């Protein structure tokens, strides 16, 4: 009934025997000397922050030669740093989100809502300023958690979720603030702590604000989180390939939720920095912050497809935008050309990202 064969030959099949004669190198790589361009491309692929760094150095060189000493003046240099601080802090939050292949359109709205909560609770409700500040942080955290829950539990695309919450947080902000600004003098009188981020260490003509120092400290903390802890590895893996990450044993839902929550809290800190920069609490300030934070992240070399990028890149990206705006303004160029330049930078940055990705294929 069953046909019993002669002992089945074990080992390589006939067609595989000739492999012994074949080239012994397994999966030999192309031995051709790669061209200079190819090697440059591989180098950039392995070190993605080099490109933004080069652009920053080139931008500084360009404007130094165009504008001269006024651009390099310590006061101007420190002014650029102050101008990028808010976007820098929001950019740190945005980087976390974009690393998971998400996007957060509500960062600016969370920032303003948190600043309004801090301001009104401290100035009008009369809570101790530290308590008002903490409640503001919790509001930011809760907003981020809401985004995270909608993304992970309802499985909605982050773009849609944050487009919706952007409107929701914006409306809550107008309702709670009654569209009224809390004036600088009122805050100075009752809650000067909220303006602390705008105070500065003076080095000659240069002003280093505590807000800028805070931005650098936050960047260092998030860098540590991303590069030296298991959570950070999980963020990259989740953004790179969520299915692979899940099969490798990562709780991708919890990782995403944590990312959105941390980003929300960082936005609240950005709200504190905003109060320091503006002096007052205005429900209408920081209108362009959403898109500016995405600009900084993208110019900083972080990929919108997730899994690739760095915090350092984002800070450099924010500085690039700051240097170009400031340099063009000092050159006497109309504001509209500043916008034009930023647009070109974004497109060039994404084009470079795409070009580098092809190395991997």
């Amino acid at each position, binding site marked *: 009934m069953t*046909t019993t064969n002669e002992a089945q030959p074990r080992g*390589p099949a006939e067609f595989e025997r000739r492999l012994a004669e074949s080239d012994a190198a397994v999966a030999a790589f192309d031995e051709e000397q790669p061209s200079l361009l190819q090697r440059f491309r591989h180098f950039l692929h392995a070190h993605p922050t080099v490109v933004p760094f080069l652009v920053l150095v080139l931008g500084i060189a360009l404007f130094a030669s165009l504008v001269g000493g006024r651009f390099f003046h310590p006061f101007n240099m420190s002014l650029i740093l102050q101008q990028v601080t808010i976007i820098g802090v929001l950019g740190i939050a945005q980087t976390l989100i974009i690393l998971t292949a998400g996007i957060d359109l509500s960062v600016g709205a969370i920032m303003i809502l948190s600043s309004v909560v801090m301001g009104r609770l401290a100035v009008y409700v009369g809570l101790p300023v530290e308590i008002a500040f903490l409640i503001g942080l919790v509001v930011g955290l809760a907003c981020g958690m809401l985004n995270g829950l909608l993304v992970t539990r309802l499985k909605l695309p982050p773009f849609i979720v944050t487009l919706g919450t952007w409107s929701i947080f914006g409306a809550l902000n107008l309702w709670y603030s009654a569209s009224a600004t809390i004036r600088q003098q009122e805050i100075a009188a009752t809650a000067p702590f909220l303006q602390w981020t705008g105070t500065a260490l003076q080095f000659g003509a240069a002003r280093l604000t505590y807000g800028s120092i805070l931005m650098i400290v936050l960047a260092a903390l998030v860098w540590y989180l991303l590069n030296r802890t298991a959570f950070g590895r999980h963020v990259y893996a989740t953004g*790179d390939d969520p299915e692979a990450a899940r099969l490798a044993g990562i709780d991708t839902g919890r990782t995403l939720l944590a990312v959105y929550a941390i980003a929300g809290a960082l936005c609240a800190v950005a709200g504190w920095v905003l109060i320091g920069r503006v002096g007052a609490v205005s429900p209408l300030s920081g209108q362009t912050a959403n898109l500016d934070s995405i600009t900084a992240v993208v110019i900083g070399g972080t990929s919108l497809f997730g899994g690739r990028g760095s915090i350092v890149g984002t800070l450099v990206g924010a500085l690039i935008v700051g240097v170009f705006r400031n340099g063009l303004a000092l050159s006497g160029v109309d504001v509209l050309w500043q916008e034009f330049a930023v647009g070109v930078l974004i497109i060039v940055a994404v084009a470079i990202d795409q070009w580098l990705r092809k190395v991997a294929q």
Partner: protein
Amino acid sequence: MSETPVLEARSLVKRYGRVVALDHADFELRRNEILAVIGDNGAGKSTLIKALAGAVKPDAGEILLDGQPVQFRSPMDARDAGIETVFQNLALSPALSIADNMFLGRERKRKDILGRYLGLLDRKTMRDEARQRLSELGLMTIQNIGQLVETLSGGQRQGVAIARAAAFGSKLVIMDEPTAALGVKESRKVLELMLDVKRRGLPIVLISHNMPHVFEVADRIHIHRLGRRIAVINPKDYSMSDAVAIMTGAMRPPEAMAA
């Protein structure tokens, strides 16, 4: 067999609506063997494997690991019990390094205060261990343990995934179509890796459609048909065409082995 099987399943049932994917299926993996699981598309072999790997919860039946009944609620449970799976998509993260991938989801923290309270990773230990595991399997043609996985060839990636499973699997390794996406040379390397892993004392469950590969490395072949184990054959006693005939119903399974 007097020895307890490493992994045993008795009468597993799994229904999806009116479709019966597993119809009182049995399974047995012995020590020091490579057991191939073959079956036509839709025979229920992936449901069987998912049940064994914890990805699917059977409606009825029991699974015994080393003779002890176990219940897996997730792939993590199975992994914690010592069952490692090399998935067809490998579950590697291309943008991370080889070392990061080897320890993905079970990173080592430093044993000092920084590790305990700040979660500082012990990157040196992880790199050293990853390098050691890869050289044990003769895979250290990969020069740099910090190399990103996306720069590796298909065979090298398979090698990293197998090394990871072999490093953490204490009981057995399940491999789902490990040679399906590979060329002739790289397939050969992966088959040798499997024999190597077996020599180190880890039994392997191999799911494959590639009959030459199955007949070359398997000690026994579990043939799945219509949701159940229809036969277990010794590849030395049967030809590939017999196996295919039993699998597709063209030939009656050998009586003694009928389940």
